[in-house]
C-alpha cells in the first residue's frame, strides 16, 4: 500500500467549505506549513479549526485568518495575533477556549473511539458552565466530549510510504493524537522514505492513522521566541 501523494495540492483534494479540520503544532513548532500555505491560496472557507494555537499574523494559521477562511477556532491559547483579536472582537470569528490537557484528551478520545470522559480541569470555572459534573474519589469532574475532524493535518520529521511517522523533539505535541482523529489524515514530512527504511521500534504514529503522506518543501520553521543563554 502506497499512501504517497505528490504534493500539498494533491493532498488537499476533497477539502470543502464548512468542514472541521485539525492542525497539529504548538505555537509555530511542528505546524504543517505546506498544507496551511496551500489551503490559504484556495477559497475554501467557513472552516472550524481545532488547533492548540492560531499562528501569528503572517505565518501558520494566521495566513488563513487573513483570508477569512476560518469561522470557528477551538484552541487553548490564541495570543500573539492581532488579526485574530480583531476578528474575535468584531464577531466574525467564533472562539472556543479549551484547557490544553482537555483539548489533547478530547482529540485522543476522538481517535480512540471514546465518546466522552471525565476530567477535573475547569471544574468551578467558566469552562464548566453547562457541562455535566460528577464526583469521583471526593473530587469534582466535568464531562468532556471527543473531537473528530473531516481532515486532520499533521507534520512529522520522518515518514514512510506506509504512513508511519516519527517526530523530532517537541514538534510532536498535538500531531500524534490528531493523526488518530481525522476521517482523512494528511501527513507532511521533512523526509519521506520507502516502507521498511524506518526502524519499526521507533515509530511514534503507526501508519494505520495516516491516509495521505508527502514530503514537504521549503520549511521555514519560524521561531516565535528565540531565547539564547547568556
Amino acid at each position, binding site marked *: 500500500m502506497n499512501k504517497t501523494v505528490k504534493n500539498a495540492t494533491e493532498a488537499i483534494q476533497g477539502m470543502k467549505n464548512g468542514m472541521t479540520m485539525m492542525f497539529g503544532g*504548538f505555537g509555530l513548532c511542528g505546524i504543517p506549513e505546506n498544507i496551511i500555505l496551500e489551503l490559504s491560496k484556495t477559497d475554501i472557507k467557513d472552516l472550524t479549526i481545532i488547533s492548540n494555537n492560531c499562528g501569528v499574523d503572517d505565518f501558520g494559521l494566521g495566513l488563513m485568518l487573513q483570508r477569512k477562511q476560518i469561522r470557528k477556532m477551538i484552541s487553548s491559547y*490564541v495570543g500573539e495575533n492581532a488579526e485574530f483579536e480583531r476578528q474575535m472582537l468584531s464577531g466574525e470569528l467564533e472562539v472556543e477556549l479549551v*484547557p490544553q*490537557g482537555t483539548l489533547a484528551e478530547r482529540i485522543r478520545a476522538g481517535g480512540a473511539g471514546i465518546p466522552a470522559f471525565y476530567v477535573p480541569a475547569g471544574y468551578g*470555572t467558566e469552562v464548566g458552565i453547562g457541562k455535566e459534573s460528577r464526583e469521583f474519589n471526593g473530587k469534582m469532574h466535568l464531562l468532556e466530549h471527543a473531537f473528530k475532524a473531516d481532515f486532520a493535518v499533521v507534520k512529522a520529521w520522518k515518514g514512510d510510504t506506509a504512513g508511519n511517522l516519527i*517526530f523530532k523533539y517537541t514538534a*510532536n505535541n498535538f500531531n500524534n493524537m490528531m493523526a488518530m482523529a481525522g476521517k482523512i489524515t494528511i501527513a507532511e514530512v521533512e523526509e519521506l522514505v520507502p516502507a521498511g527504511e524506518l526502524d519499526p521500534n521507533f515509530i511514534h504514529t503507526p501508519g494505520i492513522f495516516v491516509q495521505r503522506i508527502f514530503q514537504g518543501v521549503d520549511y521555514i520553521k519560524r521561531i516565535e521566541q528565540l531565547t539564547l*543563554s547568556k
Partner: protein
Amino acid sequence: MALDKNQIAKRIAQELQDGYYVNLGIGIPTLVANYVPEEIKVILQSENGMLGMGQFPTKETVDADLINAGKQTITYLPGASFFDSATSFAMIRGGHVDITILGAFEVSEQGDIASWKVPGRLIKGMGGAMDLVASAEHIVVAMQHSNKEGQSKLLKKCTLPLTGVKCVKRIVTDLAVLDVTDKGFKLLERAPGVTVEQIKAATEGTLIVEGDIPEIVL
C-alpha cells in the same frame, strides 16, 4: 525589605526535593530553575511535551523543533524524553508531576486561583493552567502580595474569573510565605525586615498568625 523576583524564586527553590518532577509556569516560576540547590537533582517537565529541560541554547545549538511551553527555544539534558500532548497531560492529570509552580492574579483563602483572564482585557486563553491546577498534588503560587494599584492579591474571595478551585497549597510573595488552610492564610515566614503588621495590612483575606513568625532565610 520585600523580596525581589529572584529572591522569591530562590525561596521557592527550597520547596524542591531530590528526584522531583517539576512543572514551572511562565514568569517568576521560570526563574526557580536558576536556584535549584546543588545537592539535589530535579527533572523539569514542559507541558508541550518534554521531560528533562535544560538551559537556553547557544546560537550554534538552537533548534526550532525544541521549545518550552512559553515557546522559547530550549535544550535538553541527558535522560530527557519527548512525547505528545496527551501523554504530557496524563503525567499532569495522573499526579505524576510532584510540584507545580505558577503565577497568579489572585488567590482566595479557600485556595481558589485566578490567573488567566481579566475582563475587558484581551483574552488569550488558559493554555495548560486549568489542567495543572486541577490535578497537581502540590501547587505553589509565586506572586507579588499586592497588585500595581496596591490592592491585595490574597483575598477572601477571588474577583477575577477562576482558573481552579480549592487547589493552591502554598504561596510565596515578596512579603511572606503562607499556607492555605481551612481557616484562612496561615503565615509561615516573613521577608527580612517586614513586620507581621505590614503583612496583615497587605492581606485582604483572613490571616492566621500563631506564635513568632521567623524571617525567610535565603
